[in-house]
């Protein structure tokens, strides 16, 4: 009797065979046993999938997997491999997710050790998981139009996504035994929109009167708008290198170029009519005034989108074996990054006189050398040095004039010296001990001796850093490490690493009082500033870390792995605010168990906590913690000679806590409000995911595979929940999401 099931199997088989035949002659499996076991196998998997719920039910689950927009999907994967045994020539053709918008294809033809050519095509759509309700017109364009919605939730739903389409071609060619050339070219087109926006408050330091229309004393006007960034760009990379691969010396010399071309230069919004005030009422109510021309004009100024840029790197790297026990590595690279995108053609006006593009240029010289040696069997020595000089040669110009205060563009140069030495010795009991010292010096000398812009009839204008209270030209960090590692024992292996780092720097530099520019070295007492900005990359830091891992096999069937990590960074600067400490803690256990010859299981549990302690000039102190627990259970086995099954259960519980307190500098208003609100609530994310599959052998070279995925996610966060933009736009996410995916595929193997 021909059932509908067998008809489906037959039609699927016919389709799979047809696809397989498209690659050439199809040999069903099993010419003989050895051939079956030793010849590359090709597969075609074809079928369909169904996913439950609507787009909002699966917005977290299907950010990237191509299962967002439709309920039913065509599933097609293939992996075609053919080898000519006489010549050693391979031909492979590979396709995955061909029925989804995450599809990828690759074709390769090569002869081992002689030549290779390949091509790839790759697509990825990233769906923003939140839904935007708005009246915005022209989303994804460079000229969006904003109109105040009459009420929250009355606009249209907008789902943002970004499509990436990437094509790659490449080739390798061997010349004789030691020489090889490689070349590859990648082209990627990116199209779509991502969440972005614009906000401004009038009046403010950056927009005093008369730029903002003067309002009555103490009367403010501001707006925050959701304006998706329009994305339409192309990035390309080309790399070509020559390799010399000798017995002692290997050298690689090449060129790597990368090119970014943005078809969108600037985004300029149009604001139709009025907007809401802070209370969510149209401006003009509650003591405010209707949207002023000043603020409207500011919101309608163009926003610069990422400029075209390119980078060119020439490099030579390699390794040299002095002896079987001593080997050196090296690299030198010169990179020039440039950005000369024309301002005017991108719709960006107001550049300094005579400047049509930034003319940006950053030259980077990198040198690295390392050596490892095993002078005798128990001792290993390892040393490495790395020097990087990033010099920003972009021309200076007066890009910002605020009355008598004048600022040039912000170039940023950096010299980095880093080195390490370590010695490792094999101790009794198969324990290897290692001691090491790492050193890193960062020099931002430009803060100390800023470059100068000589203006006509004016003093030299230095390279100022606006908005920063404290600078430092040099920081130095020294790290001591110790490690014990036990391996090659029958029951317990493992390692423990302890390290301590100390970062210090030169005296602090204070940006000169405007309108003067440059910086002035000052004592800690002089620079102490509760409300100052002390960048963490300049601050003193003490870092302590311990990491350990152990593996124990109490029996042949059972093995256990234990993981432990504890780390802490203490930051200090002449301020009582800003970042003070960060912490990380990890503990976990993994177990694998062979139940019998047919079934295996593994399970794990990991606890992780990351902490950041920050204090702010308003008087709040936050002890932010991201704590998560992860559990997994995996089972694989053979139910019968024809049926294999497996299941993976994943459970993650992640909680962000803020643990706020106030110090003596908090205002009475803040103290009162904090007592009323109780501070910021926790953010909770939970994910429970169960994947079950069954693989049933229909015949020796064909299977049916069924996959069922159940995913339940909860994201309870306050970030967007009650926030309303000035045009009544809202951004929401369904906090509890349940989704089930069922996929059925017919898998056909052939040679």
């Amino acid at each position, binding site marked *: 009797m021909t059932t509908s099931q067998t008809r489906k199997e037959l039609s699927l088989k016919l389709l799979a065979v047809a696809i397989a035949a498209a690659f050439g002659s199809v040999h069903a499996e099993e010419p003989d046993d050895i051939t079956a076991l030793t010849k590359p196998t090709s597969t075609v998997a074809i079928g369909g999938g169904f996913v439950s719920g609507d787009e909002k039910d699966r917005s977290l689950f299907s950010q990237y997997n191509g299962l967002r927009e439709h309920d039913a999907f065509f599933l097609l994967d293939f992996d075609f491999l053919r080898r000519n045994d006489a010549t050693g020539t391979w031909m492979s053709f590979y396709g995955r997710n061909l029925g989804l918008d995450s599809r990828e294809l690759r074709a390769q033809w090569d002869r081992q050790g002689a030549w290779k050519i390949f091509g790839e095509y790759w697509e990825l759509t990233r769906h923003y998981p939140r839904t935007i309700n708005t009246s915005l017109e022209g989303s994804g364009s460079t000229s969006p139009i904003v109109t105040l919605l009459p009420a929250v939730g009355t606009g249209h739903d907008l789902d943002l996504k970004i499509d990436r389409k990437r094509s790659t071609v490449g080739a390798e060619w061997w010349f004789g035994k030691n020489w090889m050339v490689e070349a590859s070219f990648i082209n990627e087109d990116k199209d779509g929109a991502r969440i972005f926006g614009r906000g401004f408050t009038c009046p403010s330091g950056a927009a005093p009167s008369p730029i903002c229309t003067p309002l009555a004393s103490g009367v403010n006007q501001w707006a925050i708008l959701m304006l998706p960034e329009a994305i339409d760009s192309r990035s390309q990379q080309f790399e070509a290198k020559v390799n010399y691969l000798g017995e002692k010396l290997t050298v690689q010399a090449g060129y790597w170029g990368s090119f970014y071309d943005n078809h969108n230069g600037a985004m300029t919004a149009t604001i139709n009519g009025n907007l809401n005030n802070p209370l969510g009422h149209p401006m003009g109510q509650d003591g405010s005034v209707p949207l002023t021309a000043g603020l409207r004009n500011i919101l309608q100024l163009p926003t610069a989108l990422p400029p075209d*840029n390119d980078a060119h790197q020439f490099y030579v790297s390699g*390794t040299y074996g002095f002896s079987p026990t001593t080997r050196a590595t090296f690299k030198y690279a010169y990179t020039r990054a440039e950005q000369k995108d024309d301002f005017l053609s991108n719709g960006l006006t107001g550049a300094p006189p005579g400047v049509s593009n930034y003319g940006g240029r950053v030259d980077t010289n990198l040198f690295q050398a390392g*050596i490892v040696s095993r002078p005798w069997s128990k001792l290993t020595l390892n040393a490495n040095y790395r020097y990087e000089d990033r010099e920003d040669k972009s021309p200076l110009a007066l890009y910002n004039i605020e009355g008598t205060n004048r600022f040039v563009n912000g170039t940023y140069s950096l010299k980095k010296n880093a080195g390490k030495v370590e010695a490792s010795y094999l101790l009794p009991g198969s324990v290897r001990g290692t001691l090491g010292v790492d050193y890193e010096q960062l020099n931002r000398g430009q803060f100390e001796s800023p470059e100068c812009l000589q203006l006509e009839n004016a003093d030299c204008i230095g390279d100022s850093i606006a908005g920063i209270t404290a600078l430092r030209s040099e920081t130095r960090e020294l790290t001591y490490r110790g490690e014990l590692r036990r391996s090659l024992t029958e029951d317990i292996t493992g390692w423990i690493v302890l390290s301590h780092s100390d970062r210090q720097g030169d005296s602090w530099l204070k940006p000169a009082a405007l309108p003067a520019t440059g910086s002035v070295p000052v004592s800690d007492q002089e620079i102490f500033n509760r409300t100052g900005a002390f960048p963490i990359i300049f601050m003193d830091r003490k870092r302590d870390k311990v990491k350990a891992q152990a593996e124990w096999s109490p029996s042949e069937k059972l093995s256990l792995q234990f993981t432990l990590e504890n780390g802490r960074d203490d930051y200090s600067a002449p301020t009582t605010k800003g970042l003070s400490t960060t912490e990380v803690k990890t503990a976990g256990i993994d177990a694998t168990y062979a139940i019998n010859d047919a079934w295996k299981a593994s399970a794990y549990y990991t606890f992780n906590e990351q902490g950041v302690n920050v204090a702010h000039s308003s008087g709040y102190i936050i002890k932010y913690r991201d704590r998560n627990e992860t559990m997994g259970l995996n089972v694989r086995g053979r139910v019968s000679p024809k049926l294999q099954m497996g299941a993976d259960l994943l459970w993650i519980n992640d909680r962000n806590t803020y643990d706020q307190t106030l110090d003596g500098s908090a205002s009475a208003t803040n103290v009162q409000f904090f007592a009323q609100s109780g501070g910021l609530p926790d953010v909770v994310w939970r994910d429970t995911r169960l994947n079950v599959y069954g693989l049933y052998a229909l015949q020796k070279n064909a299977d049916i595979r069924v996959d069922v995925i159940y995913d339940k996610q909860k994201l309870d966060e306050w970030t967007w929940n009650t926030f309303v933009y000035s045009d009544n736009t809202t951004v929401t996410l369904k906090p509890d999401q349940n989704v089930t995916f069922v996929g059925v595929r017919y898998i056909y193997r052939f040679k």
Partner: protein
Amino acid sequence: MRSLRYVLHGLAAAAGFAILSHVGFAFAADPPAEPRKDAVLRGDAKCTRCHDESEEYPVLAIGKTRHGTVADGRTPSCTNCHGESDTHINKPEGATERPAPDRVYRGARRSPSAKLNEACLTCHQADAKRSHWEGSQHWNADVACTNCHQIHTQHDAVRDKLTQPDVCFACHKEQRTQIQKPSRHPIPEGKMGCSDCHNPHGSVGPKLMKRDSVNDTCYTCHMEKRGPFVHVHEPVAEDCSNCHNPHGTVVENLLKVRPPMLCHQCHTPHGAQVGQIAGQGQPSGLLSGTTSGKSGINYFMARGCLNCHTQIHGTNNPSTTNPTPQFNFR
């Protein structure tokens, strides 16, 4: 009945004679035994006479791999990797247990990593992708090639982006959770693998970055962040990981901490109010029709500081007049 028994006995005797005579003939003739044929690799016969596909780690499937491509004269035999293993092949008299091969890749009798890797590097040392293996973090941590790679299988899990992360998570537990978080790269979907950013065989960059620095690695996909911009944000130009955790977080855009706390690590002047959420019953002193946009709500909710400082990676807006793009407003 008796006659039938005689017949059967006769047939059995005849059969027995035939078998014995055949065996006897074989013994008597004793021609030189034909050498056993190699099953897959050159010279594998001395191994495949015992080892086959029924092993816990099946051996014959190596024929499906690059190593099993015999037409390439550089491909190995079993003994190139496992050693000549004479005592393993010919168990010494009196030995109670068969000695292990010269190089054992798994289990309790596993050989030292350096010895195992020596076998691989005999051929793969001459490969530019592994030029910085010696001295690298994995080399230093005694990682053997076979800790990550499966040699006797057509599908080496670590070379497939979909299955590669699980191999890495055997040691890197923290990242096993992070790549599942709501804000992440498309790693669980197999669209990216760990090796898209890291070169586990050693590199010049920190953290085994594939390119020479964290930023250069990020720019391979995010070139729009490279600039150089008219107005630069220094920590951005220095290291993307100052603000982002590329493995995943619960905060949008893979930020390590939710703004404004992230920003307030360096910038403490802004925001004269404690964190607020809209609808918490703010008094008129904190929220009215005319209160400033620099409010606790606007700093903490939606995109936080980025509600106004949208171009946080730097802006190329050259406008010289207020409101200045210098603070990355536009």
